């Protein structure tokens, strides 16, 4: 069996936080649920790249070779990038960072704990298709968060259902700014960025100089597509070779409004210039066409007006 990094055990005291359990283990980190000294739950992300075996026992992270240490320290930059990016953003639809510290020879990021599940889990659990109403609800809110991200001149670069968290009240939270690791484009094989096939835009594979808001827009379109299809669209690098992606408009015509389907297809254009160029443009497109020929109640009308004012 392959050797893997040990997670911190339950009840472990990490500074003023007490570890409850591991929630998830990813390529760069382990996420724990923990409690602060007031007993409030927090999520703590521990920087611990899985490609480097650094902790087979105990709590201290130790690099076994000088080369390992170099890679470990080098990758830490990306973790800092994530912290830097998130620290600046205080928005209800973006995960909030509460603290950032060094311990056990590695670094930790403490986040507000969110109750719910990822959009990925939501998609996998459901037997029936997701309703248009829910899709709109989730993405309109998510786009508000993403707009805030772009306002700070940051790109997320890894928008996908696994990184969109749905609170129990249905509002989304954008997670995992690990790919705001724009810095990690150099050829260090051990810590190469992992773009998620299906959700990464073509320029992320071949043209890092052309990254922009439209790159995240591709991820949003792909995630919306996945909500309807329950699987990811064809990977962009394969699409460049031979595009087999059938348009959303063709697949789901009649089941969803033309507006939503057209928006998905628009976001998934291979040419970055042909996609919505900003989150605002995308929001406008989703909003502009009335969802259904249903009579608007007074409340709906008011809500819409408010939305458009807030959004502008």
């Amino acid at each position, binding site marked *: 069996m392959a050797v893997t990094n040990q997670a911190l055990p339950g009840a472990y005291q990490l500074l003023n936080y007490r570890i409850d359990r591991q929630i998830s283990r990813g390529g760069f980190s382990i996420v724990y649920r923990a409690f602060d000294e007031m007993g409030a739950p927090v999520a703590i992300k521990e920087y611990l790249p899985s490609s480097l075996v650094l902790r087979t026992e105990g709590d201290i992270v130790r690099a076994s070779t000088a080369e390992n*240490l*170099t*890679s*470990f*320290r*080098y990758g*830490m*930059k990306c973790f*800092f*990038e994530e*912290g*830097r990016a998130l*620290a*600046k*953003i*205080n928005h209800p639809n973006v995960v909030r*960072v*509460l*603290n*950032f*510290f*060094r311990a056990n020879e590695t*670094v930790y990021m403490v986040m507000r704990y969110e109750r719910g599940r990822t959009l990925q889990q939501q998609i996998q659990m459901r037997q029936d298709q997701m309703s248009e109403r829910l899709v709109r609800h989730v993405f309109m809110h998510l786009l508000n968060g993403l707009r805030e991200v772009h306002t700070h001149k940051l790109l997320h670069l890894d928008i996908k259902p696994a990184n969109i968290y749905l609170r129990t009240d249905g509002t989304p939270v954008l997670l995992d700014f690990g790919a705001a690791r*724009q*810095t*990690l*484009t*150099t050829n*260090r094989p051990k810590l190469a960025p992992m773009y998620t096939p299906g959700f990464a835009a073509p320029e992320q594979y071949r043209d890092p100089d052309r990254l922009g808001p439209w790159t995240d827009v591709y991820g949003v379109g792909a995630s919306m597509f996945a909500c309807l299809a329950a699987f990811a669209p064809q990977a962009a690098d394969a699409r460049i070779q031979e595009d087999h992606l059938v348009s959303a408009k063709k697949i789901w015509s009649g089941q969803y409004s033309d507006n939503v389907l057209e928006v998905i297809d628009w976001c998934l254009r291979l040419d970055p210039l042909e996609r919505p160029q900003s989150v605002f443009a995308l929001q406008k497109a989703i909003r502009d066409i009335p969802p259904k020929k249903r009579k608007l109640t007074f409340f709906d009308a008011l809500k819409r007006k408010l939305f458009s004012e807030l959004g502008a």
Partner: protein
Amino acid sequence: MRFTIFQESRKGSRKVNQDRIAYTYSRDTLLLVVADGMGGHAGGEIAAQIAARLFIERFQQEAKPVLKSPLKFLQDSMLRAHAALGSYANQFSMLETPRTTCVACVVQAGHAYWAHVGDSRLYLYRQGGIIGQTKDHSKVQYLVDQGIIGADEVAMHPDRNKIFSCLGGLVDPVIDLGKRTPLRNGDVIVMCSDGLWSVLSKEEMSTWLTSTPILKTAPQMMAEAEKRGGSEGDNLSAIVVRWGPETLTDEPSTTITETLGLGQFETQIDRTLTLTDRKGAQRDLSDDEIEHAIAEIQATIQRYRR
């Protein structure tokens, strides 16, 4: 010692400022340094930082309370900075050694001494005229010396960035030492990177700085120079020292070093490094840098807390 000192470094239209300026003084000796890092990635910035720091640190070790030989100090420090850049590159297995220009000046016992490598410059003005200046280690300067182009063509020449001597280069640096020059009250020393001298002639600098209170006009001069650099503007930096008590303004701007205790230093050096050059220098983080990054993130969290 009495003098008025101004220092400023601006990014111009570049993403990263690879210029570093620093000064330090004890009761009896003053040291000024300007370094202009070269090359892409984080290398240039690191190189300039290392050079500036090395000068400051060595000065504080050796000026006890005065330097035995200012010229020897300048020459040794240049050579050590050059060696330090080489070993830094080695330590982090960098493909390319970080490189920088450097001009440094010591004022001690009423005399100025300077040394330079590359194309960062020193001008010494007396009553508006030039009485001392460095000569660039650059291809265009060579062309001027050979009479192939005129001095006024240097700033615009396409090869004006090509220098043949620098710290951290493959070959040992050519170090020019300026001869010991007695200073008079009112003399003005200007040290600058090419981002400044390429947009402002030495005559113009003289107009800006030699008959006016420098703390007022030097910032204006920097703003004007940055404007001239426009959207292509390079990093630009300057240290300006007006020797002697300030007579051009009533404002209390003169630094009086006699109030410093023996063995005490006043130092000005920017210690921040842009860690996250987008192209990502292939370098891991030092403990200092980790602490620095964490402190910065925590400060940001506090700032955006609602």
